């Protein structure tokens, strides 16, 4: 088997994992595909070392996470601005995205549709809520690690994640009501 064939098998094996991490963090399929391509190119450059390593999955996840944060960092100033603006209006109700999604969720008849609706609800979260939520629930980082990674305060991370969960709860409650 040539190196190209081996690498193709490697990409086939891990592409869903890399793409899932990227698309959940970035909320955009196009951006996630760009990031996934960059990650696999870096993997190819180190393929001799990581190709058959049992740590390959962990390495790919870490690199994907960092690439996503790099990708987001160019919008970081705007991200912080809107995030702090929404913190200042913390009495506002949770964004109405869940209400919009609730209808489609309610009408969902099978698990796949419910999964799609929940993925869509996560994707629709504002960036400053979605990224820490994904890092906590999917990447299993602690609150402190997320605060360090995003260079924001611990309190802000907790607030953003809580608001994201509140938004998702509306979708999940609608699901429970239809069962």
């Amino acid at each position, binding site marked *: 088997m040539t190196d190209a064939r081996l690498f*193709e098998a490697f990409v086939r094996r891990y*592409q869903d994992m890399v793409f899932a991490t990227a698309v959940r963090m970035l909320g955009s399929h196009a951006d996630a*595909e760009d990031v996934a391509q960059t990650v696999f190119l870096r993997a190819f450059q180190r393929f001799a070392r990581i190709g058959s390593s049992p740590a390959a999955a962990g390495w790919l996840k870490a690199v994907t996470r960092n690439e996503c944060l790099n990708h987001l960092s160019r919008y970081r100033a705007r991200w912080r601005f809107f995030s702090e603006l929404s913190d200042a209006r913390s009495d506002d109700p949770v964004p109405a995205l869940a209400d919009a999604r609730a209808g489609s969720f309610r009408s969902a008849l099978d698990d796949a549709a419910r999964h799609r609706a929940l993925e869509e609800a996560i994707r629709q979260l504002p960036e400053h809520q979605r990224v820490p939520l994904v890092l906590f629930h999917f990447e299993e980082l602690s609150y402190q690690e997320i605060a360090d990674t995003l260079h924001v305060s611990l309190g802000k991370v907790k607030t953003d994640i809580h608001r994201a969960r509140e938004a998702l709860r509306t979708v999940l409650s609608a699901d429970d009501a239809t069962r």
Partner: protein
Amino acid sequence: MTQPADLERLVHAHVRGLPPPPAPQTLLPRVMAAVASWAARPWYKRAWFTWPAAGQFVTVVTLLALTIGLLGLLPVVARPFVESLADALADGQAELAMLVAYARVTSETAAGLWRAVIGPFVSYASTLVLLMTLACGLFGAALNHAVVGRMSAE
């Protein structure tokens, strides 16, 4: 009202149950094309250690020639700077010598004045200051004894 911990568990249970979104069909061809393009990039865009021997030889020789040329050129380029620096130091040295002379004259004058005017009176002045200090001390002690003694008698 759901507690934050309950909400965390609820959301965690649901989102962890989500299957990973499948990568699009276009991702694999894109990656393989990018990898092929990267592998086919021209030799001069790769790491130097992977260059052809001739290319490595040429760069080493060029680097050596540049270094030797710069080293040979350095004295010529630096001469005006060195000369101007030496001039500045010479000027500075003359000014320094003048300052030392002034300082010497001033100190000799001060020493002469001390010997002729102040020196003879120093011993007398010191004795006077010592006596006045003793007198002040004695007066203070006497005053303290008188006042405190009266208060304790009362």
